[in-house]
């Protein structure tokens, strides 16, 4: 199983990029599945299921922060993806507080940014960008070429090793290099670990427990099926 994690601010074009990628993955005889983690509302799983007929799910993080939810359910999600017979699991999540990052070791981390968001965005979003492998810059048709170059510079200034891919996803441009990297991703290994050091805080994840799966954590936890429960004193 290969795990591909897409992150990025709301409405930046993550789903559009993912749909183009899935179309090419299916054409290349791969078997992707898709999970959307969101806070209150998501219909992307239904849209993608209808369009491609692949296994999809949505997970509402509800009371939890979506990145926190990602950490406690991702092991179950990978098992689900294996059960439904897929070989790639695409996880789409909106990192909201910008202090964590959802990427797991041995996964491929893809951050999607829209170049219309202002030149300081790459400086503002922290580990969601700096710990990603690929930065996909979307909506390049909406700004001048000069602005694209300056935005790209700001991305590379924040994340020196990252691969920048500029994409006009509606038009299907800039998708092939993403697919090539996805296909080269290594298999995920258990136990899974978060890639980054989470910020100092009071929850188990914020204080540095990087193990994936609810059984490694205490406090308010949940399963993939939206049941909150409590472990601890």
């Amino acid at each position, binding site marked *: 199983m290969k795990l591909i994690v897409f992150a990025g601010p709301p409405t930046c074009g993550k789903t559009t990029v993912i749909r183009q990628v899935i179309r090419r993955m299916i054409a290349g005889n791969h078997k992707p599945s898709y999970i959307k983690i969101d806070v209150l509302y998501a219909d992307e799983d239904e849209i993608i299921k209808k369009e491609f007929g692949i296994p999809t799910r949505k997970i509402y993080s509800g009371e939890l922060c979506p990145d926190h939810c990602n950490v406690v359910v991702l092991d179950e999600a990978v098992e689900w993806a294996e059960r439904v017979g897929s070989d790639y699991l695409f996880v789409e999540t909106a990192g909201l507080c910008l202090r964590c990052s959802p990427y797991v070791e041995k996964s491929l981390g893809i951050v999607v940014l829209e170049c219309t968001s202002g*030149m300081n965005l790459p400086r503002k979003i922290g580990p969601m960008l700096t710990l990603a492998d690929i930065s996909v810059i979307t909506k390049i048709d909406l700004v001048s070429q*000069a*602005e694209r170059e*300056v935005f790209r510079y700001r991305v590379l200034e924040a994340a020196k090793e990252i691969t920048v891919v500029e994409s006009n996803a509606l038009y299907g441009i800039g998708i092939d290099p993403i697919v090539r990297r996805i296909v080269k991703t290594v298999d995920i290994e258990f136990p899974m670990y978060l890639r980054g050091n989470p910020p100092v805080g009071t929850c188990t994840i914020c204080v540095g427990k990087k193990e994936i799966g609810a059984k490694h954590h205490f406090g308010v936890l949940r399963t993939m099926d939206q049941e909150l429960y409590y472990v601890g004193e």
Partner: protein
Amino acid sequence: MEIDKITIMGGIGKDGQPEKVEQLDLKMGDIVSIVGPTGCGKTTLINDIELFGNRNTPSQRQILLNGEPVPDDFTFDPSKHPIALISQHTNFLSDLPVGEFLTIHATVRGASNIQRVVNETIEFANQLTGEAIIKGTAMTELSGGQTRSLLIADAVIIGNSPIILLDEIENAGIHKTRALELLKNYRKIFVFVTHDPTIALLSDFRIVMKNGAMQKLIFSNDEEKRAANKLKSMDNIILHYRSLVRSGEELHAHILDEELIGIN
């Protein structure tokens, strides 16, 4: 990389039929216009060129550079990008002052004397626009004409791009024939998407588009060049009268009559 020519290999039109123009070379020094009614695919054509379409866009066109398909990494390092596209957008979204933005762009492009090219860019832009651009102004506060002027100047001087694509420069309230004269001082491939007869006729040739497809090429002959020069004189009269109206003058029809006779 030295660029001699780019080649457009025709794809398909909106009806799925092959384009009538199967292959077309744009050589260094060429000035080319793309003409046709709104919605006929002019902008799509220059987008295909700018993105180095490789049979992977809806038009299925392929763009060759010096006769060869373009390697993938070429597309993804914009500081090596040989093509600058001046789109129809007349707003910047970037929240930086003009001077700082141009300084970063000149840095990205590896300019040797950054301050000099930044100043040269602003001077060039100010020849095309009515209101002078000041370095400290936020990019987002520039007018449509100032934005377009700055984009053209940036592409020519900071970008130093050998191929420049301009989408309807006549729309933004800049001095278009002045722009054409200034641009002719630089040896590049210029492609104008235009509805303006003067720009189209002053080009070396024009590509006629219809229904998403390249229909034919028309090379401007001497007869057309003569017409172009008359149209240019008419444009200059219109510009002159525009500035008179702008500055609060009252007009006299008999003076205009004499000027129109002067064209003939």
